[in-house]
């Protein structure tokens, strides 16, 4: 049985932890707002890019399509770009992404394909290192980046395109967590090379007007597709940033609640023991007096 002093210490330490988790929750809430705003600000660009891309892809005949869009014609080597957070303490956020990536890797290896992994963010690297360290070809550290800018995404995209140009892989898939709400983030796998142009969107683009292209469509497309990859990665990073903060907020909220419950339980035990001790002392005094 723990002594009264032990219990007192225990309560004090849980209270201190609760203060920390509470503070982390509030910080996450503030950051979440900013991350959400950033994700929203980036949306118009991504949407228009998608529309333009669908439009122009329709204009370029299949044979002229640049390799980034048409692919290499094989799918032997897969590159997995796994985007996770840099920090933990955000519930199952990182492990969900890592799990999805791991399932993909296992499936691809089972089919006899070569798998290469590019880790963005420390946590994903840590999670995948254990089982698939020899598949990880590179990692990008965003630890010192306070606010994710387009440059960060652009750099990753350049790395990916550089590898593609060297013929290092045939298919590239991006793993990230889609931000749906504060409570739910959905780990998602999205193929970025060869670029999958959503067929449904094509009909949705504004008009059937015949476009003039300057320079010709193929040249624009060749320029546009690398840019689109940057945009997709940028979007993934922003979604991740918002998702991480959402997950962290939820995780820290429940941690705070758990700490509260623990304090209540410990306080009851503490009070009970204190009362028991008082009663014991009283009995001793009374029985001492009766014995006289």
């Amino acid at each position: 049985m723990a002594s009264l002093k032990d219990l007192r210490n225990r309560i004090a330490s849980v209270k201190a932890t609760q203060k920390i988790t509470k503070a982390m929750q509030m910080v996450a809430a503030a950051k979440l707002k900013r991350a959400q705003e950033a994700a929203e600000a980036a949306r118009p660009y991504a949407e228009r890019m998608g529309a333009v891309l669908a439009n122009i892809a329709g204009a370029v005949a299949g044979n002229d399509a640049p390799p980034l869009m048409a692919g290499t014609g094989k799918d032997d080597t897969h590159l997995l770009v796994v985007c996770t957070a840099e920090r933990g303490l955000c519930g199952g956020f990182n492990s969900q992404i890592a799990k999805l990536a791991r399932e993909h890797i296992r499936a691809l290896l089972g089919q006899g394909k070569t798998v290469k992994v590019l880790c963005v963010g420390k946590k994903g690297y840590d999670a995948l290192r254990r089982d698939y360290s020899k598949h990880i070809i590179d990692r990008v550290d965003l630890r010192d980046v306070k606010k994710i800018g387009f440059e960060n995404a652009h750099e990753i995209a350049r790395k990916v395109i550089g590898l593609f140009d060297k013929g290092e892989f045939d298919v590239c898939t991006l793993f990230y967590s889609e931000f749906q709400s504060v409570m739910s983030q959905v780990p998602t796998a999205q193929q970025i090379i060869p670029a999958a142009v959503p067929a449904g969107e094509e009909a949705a683009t504004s008009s059937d007007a015949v476009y003039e292209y300057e320079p010709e469509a193929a040249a624009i497309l060749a320029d546009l597709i690398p840019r689109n990859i940057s945009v997709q990665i940028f979007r993934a990073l922003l979604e991740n940033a918002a998702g991480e903060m959402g997950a962290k907020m939820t995780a820290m909220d429940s941690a705070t609640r758990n700490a509260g419950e623990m304090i209540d339980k410990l306080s009851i035990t503490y009070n009970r023991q204190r009362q028991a001790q008082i009663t014991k002392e009283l009995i001793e005094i009374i029985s001492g007096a009766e014995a006289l």
Partner: protein
Amino acid sequence: MADAFKFDLVSPERLLFSQEVESVVIPGTEGEMTVMAAHAPTMTNIKPGVVTVNAAGGGSERYVVFGGFADILPEGCTVLAESAVHVDEINREDLARRIQEAREDVADAEDDHTRTRAEEFLAQLTTLEGAILPA
């Protein structure tokens, strides 16, 4: 008084400009072009340069863009800029840094094709520097 049309300038990070305008000058890769209302549908790449916007109510704004893409329709025009800043906010260090990076790209280029492209980009940047930041 020419007709007004809608002009949007978006960068990946935010929407910079979205208003009714009278005309816009876009630095296309094939040369500058002025877009007015009811322009034929056109798509063009943009080189680093200055986008001049003449607002419908008079007055003009200038934005520096670093490459991108323009989608022009009769009813409106959208510029998707890789990176864009208002001309008043551009500073010498930022531009110098970009030029430095472009130089490194030229040095790092592994084949002729990428080198030519990097050199072209560098040349466009230096022209831009000369145009907006007189020494």
